[in-house]
């Protein structure tokens, strides 16, 4: 019996054995979205910026026809999915959570989206996000925040809070996120879901509206490790349209997840990163982390402490490199070709139209980072800021290399705290930036990482996440270790963590 709580793997099975149809389960999720996403009291989850019921049902119907003819395109054919609004979708609005792109309908699909369509996954809609993926709470969306299904007064993480909340609230079985400094993993941690940032270059960035090109990576947002692996297998692989995409054959992540689910970790060396703990880390989060490490030991893993001394500079380097690249990326939003156009009174010049449009179209956080980045790249400051940051980046990569010379994977809590209250850190950018302390190093070095739910913090009963990092190209390891931990927890808890989420009032 399928329900909105079914995993994607279960839906694949149900579609295959004919116990459901793509139209039926697409409708099921559209109904769920209608019930919980926007509510009369204004306290809906608001995971979606745009829902394409008609399009999704049409794609579902086509999928059912293919299935009836025996022409299924792949395992996930017919399983609906939500896509973060930072990936271009032909014919569907793409706003990146910004007013400056309000109403823009791209004439082309991102490669990830094209692969989803080609594989037959109906696209339910586009999910909410911090404006241009700048934030850790989704509160910087120009279209209002997303709420955490565990507690509607709390943030769902960010920037991909919409995708994480959509799967946590059972509005979609699968979603696509993007991770520049933790935007897939940190929302996963605070919503009790699974999120994977693949190796840089593992998934095409063509059509991903760049925040910071050298850090961005799209990846799966799901409720189980196996679902993430299946989705990763589908969207990954070389794309000639993205020069930075890696040309190599990848192992099956689905197989890696299945192998991990046996729970045998013998022979696996796990490094606990010394620097990602201490002051500012919530006690309940640290307690859950220690339990996870103990579980891995119980499963046969060898655990050691590993120091990555340069990680303490990661946040500083990140907040120079990211704004630098972003300031240049965002220059294209100038009202000349698409998007918002604000025309000041009188007889304004093109330059005045650009200025007025950018003033009205960008939110404060975006402006803050454009200013930071413009400054960091300025002549006379370049070496001191952007140049230094690149050197730190090299040091961080070396820390990873040294660590992976002695361990197979590195682990840490995904985020220092559980979900905080909406508005709590909105006026304190530094506090907001600290959420990504543990996730940023992976982006700077281009290595893959996963966040899996590892319980609820004692103080607040909110989910925490366990991060597993692996060397570049070894994404299979994060699936293997993630799936092992997930399997052990399922046994301990008697079911998934999300079963313990308070029901949304409309259920």
């Amino acid at each position, binding site marked *: 019996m399928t329900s909105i709580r079914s995993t994607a793997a279960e839906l694949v099975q149900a579609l295959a054995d004919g116990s459901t149809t793509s139209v039926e389960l697409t409708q099921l999720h559209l109904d769920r979205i209608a019930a919980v996403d926007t509510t009369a009291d204004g306290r809906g989850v608001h995971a979606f910026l745009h829902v394409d019921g008609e399009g999704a049902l049409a794609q579902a119907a086509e999928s059912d026809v293919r299935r009836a003819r025996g022409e299924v395109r792949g395992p996930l054919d017919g399983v609906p999915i939500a896509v973060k609004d930072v990936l271009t979708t032909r014919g569907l609005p793409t706003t990146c959570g910004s007013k400056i792109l309000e109403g823009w309908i791209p004439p082309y699909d991102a490669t990830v989206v094209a692969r989803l369509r080609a594989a037959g996954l109906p696209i339910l809609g586009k999910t909410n996000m911090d404006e241009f993926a700048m934030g850790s709470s989704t509160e910087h969306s120009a279209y209002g925040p997303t709420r955490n299904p565990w507690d509607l007064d709390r943030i769902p993480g960010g920037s991909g809070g919409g995708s994480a909340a959509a799967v946590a609230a059972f509005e979609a079985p699968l979603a696509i996120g993007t991770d520049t400094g933790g935007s897939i993993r940190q929302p996963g941690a605070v919503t009790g879901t699974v999120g994977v940032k693949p190796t840089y270059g593992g998934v095409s960035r*063509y059509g991903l509206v760049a925040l910071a090109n050298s850090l961005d990576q799209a990846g799966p947002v799901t409720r189980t490790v196996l679902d993430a692996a299946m989705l990763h297998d589908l969207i990954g692989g070389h794309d000639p349209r993205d020069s930075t995409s890696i040309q190599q054959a990848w192992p099956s992540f689905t197989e890696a997840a299945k192998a991990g689910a046996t729970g045998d970790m013998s022979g696996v060396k796990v490094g606990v990163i010394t620097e990602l703990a201490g002051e500012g880390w919530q006690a309940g989060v640290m307690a859950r982390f220690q339990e996870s490490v103990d579980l891995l030991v119980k499963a046969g893993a060898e655990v050691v402490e590993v120091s990555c001394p340069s990680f303490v500079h990661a946040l500083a380097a990140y907040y120079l490199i990211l704004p630098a690249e972003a300031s*240049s990326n965002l220059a294209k939003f100038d009202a000349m*070709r698409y998007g918002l156009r604000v025309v000041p009174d009188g007889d304004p010049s093109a330059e005045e139209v650009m200025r007025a449009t950018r003033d009205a179209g960008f939110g404060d956080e975006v402006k803050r980072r454009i200013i930071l980045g413009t400054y960091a790249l300025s002549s006379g400051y370049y070496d001191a800021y952007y140049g230094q940051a690149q050197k730190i980046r090299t040091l961080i990569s070396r820390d990873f290399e040294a660590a992976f010379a002695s361990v197979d994977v590195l682990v840490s809590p995904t985020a220092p705290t559980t979900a905080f209250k909406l508005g709590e850190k909105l006026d304190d950018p530094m506090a907001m930036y600290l959420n990504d302390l543990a996730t940023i190093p992976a982006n700077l070095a281009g290595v893959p990482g996963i966040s899996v739910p590892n319980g609820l913090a004692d103080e607040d009963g909110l989910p925490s996440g366990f991060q597993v990092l692996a060397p570049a190209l070894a994404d299979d390891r994060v699936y293997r270790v993630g799936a092992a931990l997930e399997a052990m927890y399922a046994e301990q808890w008697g079911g998934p963590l999300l079963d313990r989420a308070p029901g949304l009032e409309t259920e």
Partner: protein
Amino acid sequence: MTAPVTDTLMPFDDVLAAYDPALGLEVHVELNTASKMFCGCPAVFGGEPNAGVCPTCLGLPGAMPVVNGKAVESAIRIGLALNCDIAEWCRFARKNYFYPDMPKNFQTSQYDEPICFDGYMDVEVDGETVRVEIERAHMEEDTGKSLHVGGSTGRIHGADYSLVDYNRAGIPLIEIVTRPILGAGGRAPEVARAYVAQLRELIVALGVSEARMDQGNLRADVNLSLAPKGSGVLGTRTETKNVNSFRSVERAVRYEMQRHAAILSGGGSIRQETRHWHEDTAITTSGREKSDAEDYRYFPEPDLVPVAPSREWVDELRGTLPENPTVRRARLQAEWGFSDLEMRDTVGAGALGLVEETIAEGAAPQAARKWWLGELARRSNEDGVDIVDLPITPAQVARIQALVDDRTVNDKLARQVFEGVLAGEGSPDEVVASRGLAVVSDDGALGAAVDSAIAANPDVAGRIREGKVAAAGALIGVVMKEMRGQADAGRVRELILEKLA
């Protein structure tokens, strides 16, 4: 509107007495690759506006660039032909500035890691060789083209609105930058012209660009500064843009030398700025100020991987280079039997390649030289158009010479054929037909004309009958007049002598 012209100019000889010029040239070469620098759109400017565009060259959110391998190949071949080193590893960078014809508001270019660097070109000026050092040749993309509608000048100020055609955006460009050329003195204008003309010839020989200055395939920016004579320092420079012919390169250098000198000698100082060359009035006017405050915030393009041409590939490309220009000039001179002076004039007129192609199309060397350096050089001067940009091809010149050789036209009529071809009336044969220029050698038509000339001039006819053959000239003149110059004079003479034998 054009700024009022109040520039004071110092007489050129006075400039040379007091100042040493330093010259620098930046030449942009638009490559003739099939597709653009970073996407698959056709690299063809023109056609329906904004038809040759895609998400990448329009700078749509999410779109990404991919380097055109053929453009890299062309860049390396240009670099090798200019005796440059080829980088083993180099990156693209973003040059950030806002302008509506730039889709991303940054230009993807190369900054401190050019693909070609440290080369030179030996330029022949009046029979002497001047070595021009090449600092770098790098790859970049072109911008869109703005059309300012309304107003009186077509410039942005005063325009009612502007249109932008992005078909040109992303077309691959190679920018070739010289080191400061010092010590040219009074020959600086000629050196500048010769460098650009001979660089163009090299580009044509490489086959990497159409290289037409009048079409903007080849664009030269002229940097010039003056320093007190013998001081050995570099003065403040200006960069003159919009110089669209060899002739203008020469004139712009001369103009700026005279303008700078007048300002400096009056105790003033030169503003570091961009200046615009005006072809019609042959002056420069101030463009935007190019102060140190201009900050392009260059940083490596994160969407592209480094370009790392293997040494094997570079060596392979070295094997595809055309003949060294100096060797080529010597070879051609020997083959054609030109005197030193004839060769120098040919090179100086920028007509070496044209003459070579004309000869390849079947014309005799002296005939090819005669037309290009005579009739066509005159036209190029009169029209203020570079000789290579005249609307006539070497094949057409060779055809006209063939028409002379087979006596379809004579030299005088041939000039009318040139006129017709240059006026766009079609091929030489079409001009001959439509203008009715073919020489009449048909005995019937000529015979009738000769008969009436004899009848009308009995005295002359009588003298010829008496053996005064020289008098035939007068009758030939009458016939030619009657036939409006289109008679075969030799045949007319034969007919007269036959009839009066």
